[in-house]
């Protein structure tokens, strides 16, 4: 398995697990502790983003170590990356239009923060999933 493919698999799994837990915790505390302090909310978000960052960095460094001395990237990697990024960009664009141009009139505060984080995560999951599909199911122009 290529390091890029391995990284995409780790990244998609991490996003689903970590942000799934985060949004589950946010939903739970919304009902059990509706008066949760700002510091605690920021702390929860920091733990989730910190975990994502550490796992992403670890997976990337491991991939670099495994592939040392090999050709780093070729045309197939670039084609797969370009197509995945293009589709994920439109997903992100739709999410940002919704959170930035619609939600301010109907929601506020943490709901907007969480919606933005959710759409970023969805775009990243789409990106990673398309990379995985590109490597596993093939890519044809």
């Amino acid at each position: 398995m290529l390091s890029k493919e391995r990284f995409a698999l780790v990244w998609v799994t991490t996003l689903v697990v970590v942000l799934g837990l985060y949004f589950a915790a946010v939903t739970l505390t919304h009902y059990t502790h509706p008066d949760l302090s700002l510091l605690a909310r920021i702390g929860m978000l920091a733990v989730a983003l910190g975990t994502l960052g550490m796992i992403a960095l670890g997976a990337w460094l491991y991939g670099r170590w495994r592939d040392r001395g090999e050709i780093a990237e070729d045309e197939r990697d670039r084609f797969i990356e370009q197509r995945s990024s293009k589709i994920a960009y439109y997903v992100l664009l739709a999410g940002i239009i919704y959170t930035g141009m619609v939600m301010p009139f109907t929601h506020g505060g943490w709901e907007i923060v969480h919606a933005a984080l959710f759409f970023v995560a969805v775009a990243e999951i789409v990106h990673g999933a398309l990379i995985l599909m590109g490597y596993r199911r093939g890519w044809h122009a």
Partner: protein
Amino acid sequence: MRERRLANEIRALRFHAGEMTQEELGRRVGVTRQTIAALEAGKYSPSLECAFRIAEVFGKPLDEVFRWG
């Protein structure tokens, strides 16, 4: 209309070139071993430049390495 795919003879040509490894072919063409494996499995259609490079390695014209069918 029937879907047509780019097929190739890379596996056979590697065999006739003294069982050249995918890694060796990839190194000479400038792509990874995984890309050569994907080409042989029909999971990837190479760029024209890559196709010419592969044909050049085997000393064959392009249409003896790749076919459209």
